């Protein structure tokens, strides 16, 4: 049986202040933050990490919220589970792409206990929420004791399992601006088994002008095809200011594909993933456009 072999000291926090205090105290120690632990526990079982301290923030019910208003947009507290995001009436109404994304995250059991922010902080390059958050222009709030900073979702993960979160810090919230009129967003992932990490994933946002002809904004997020989720800026530029035709979309997909740098693995070669990323951009781009025309 696989169990966690190495002992650690368990430090549960009840409030955000308590969590930040614990983090400040253990800043220079070998610690890990646990929320749902759906990736962390497995990593500990495999002895990939053997922290001396586990700071448990799962009990911070203050950070378990999803709120929306037109002015400040959407706010997702750091202890929101995948399942809460999936089932939230606010999400289904305003950002259905996030519910669509959630339906393919692992399994119901994992979504029930695991958190969205925990998933982001684990920073697997194929993290499911990564691409849609990039497409939606999300910001991530990182807090330390007595300080707070806000970073762009696309900057958040810096490398395989590495983020901008520094020792002594934790993520407290994700913010997503309200979508402008005539916007459509779509996400899809390709994986060997339903619910598994993506070989490649893509999210596209398209905003059209008043006449619903010309693209005024485009954002493209890709997952699984680099050492962190990728924003395909060159492909976005190609779409902006133009009427999006199938040809243009195919061209942008090709450009997006060139903006990736996947590595080969046992499931697929780098070339395959690169190509797949382009195919997915074309596919979700088409749907995002259709949604923008209806919105």
């Amino acid at each position, binding site marked *: *049986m*696989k*169990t*966690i*072999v*190495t*002992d*650690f*000291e*368990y430090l*549960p926090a009840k409030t955000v202040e308590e969590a930040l205090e614990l983090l400040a105290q253990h800043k220079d120690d070998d610690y890990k933050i*646990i929320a749902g*632990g*759906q990736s962390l*526990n*497995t990593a*500990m*079982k*495999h002895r990939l990490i053997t922290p001396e301290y*586990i700071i*448990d923030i*799962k009990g911070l019910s203050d950070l378990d919220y999803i709120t929306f208003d037109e002015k400040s947009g959407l706010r997702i507290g750091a202890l929101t589970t995948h*399942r809460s995001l999936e089932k939230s009436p606010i999400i289904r109404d305003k950002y259905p792409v996030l519910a669509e994304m959630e*339906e393919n995250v*692992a*399994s*119901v*059991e*994992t979504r*029930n*206990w695991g958190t969205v922010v925990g998933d982001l902080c684990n920073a697997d390059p194929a993290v499911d929420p990564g691409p849609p958050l990039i497409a939606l222009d999300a910001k991530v709030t990182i807090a330390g004791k007595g300080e707070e900073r806000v970073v762009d979702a696309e900057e958040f993960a810096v490398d395989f399992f590495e983020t901008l979160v520094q020792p002594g810090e934790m993520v407290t919230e994700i913010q997503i601006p309200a979508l402008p009129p005539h916007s459509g967003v779509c996400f899809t992932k390709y994986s060997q088994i*339903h*619910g598994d990490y993506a070989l490649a994933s893509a999210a596209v946002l398209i905003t059209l002008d008043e006449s619903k002809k010309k693209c005024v904004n485009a954002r493209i997020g890709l997952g699984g095809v680099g050492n962190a989720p990728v924003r395909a800026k060159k492909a976005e530029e190609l779409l902006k200011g133009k009427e999006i035709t199938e040809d243009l979309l195919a061209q942008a997909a090709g450009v997006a594909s060139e903006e990736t740098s996947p590595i080969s693995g046992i499931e697929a070669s780098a070339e395959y993933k690169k190509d797949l990323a382009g195919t997915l951009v074309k596919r979700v781009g088409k749907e995002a456009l259709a949604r923008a025309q209806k919105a």
Partner: protein
Amino acid sequence: MKQQLKIVVNGEPYDLFVEPKTLLVQVIREMLGLKGTHQACDSSSCAACTVILDGMAVKSCSVLALQANGKEVLTIEGLADGTKLHPIQQAFIDNWAFQCGFCTSGQIMAAKALLDENPNPTREEIQEQMDGHICRCTGYNMINEAIRDAAKRLQSEKSAQSGKGAA
């Protein structure tokens, strides 16, 4: 250092002391001796170890036991009423929804969590809920049929009860 874990399992309160590295499945199987919850992949991939924690299906191999402090757990042993099987258990038998039975307790707990929330699920909704459960012998159709059958049984049980209440 061991820490206190107060937990209610199948209605029984327990006051335990556990090492922080202990997983919920280890408490259930090794400390409480409830071996109906099975461990297979131990890496959150098969769902055989599914139990219900405060109303939600979770994989007990992937939850730190101390995170269940103060919470209620329901395992397969908590379903039957004495020797009378729970309608979901009976429906699994009647619909040939298992062969070796290793994954069955996890399947039944996930089905219970679904039916508690949604008493009349569609085939697709059942599929979505059971998606993470790996069964190597049965094929998944019979499991889906068993859960739809269980939903009917639970509903008729419920209406029989409310009928009695009215009389």
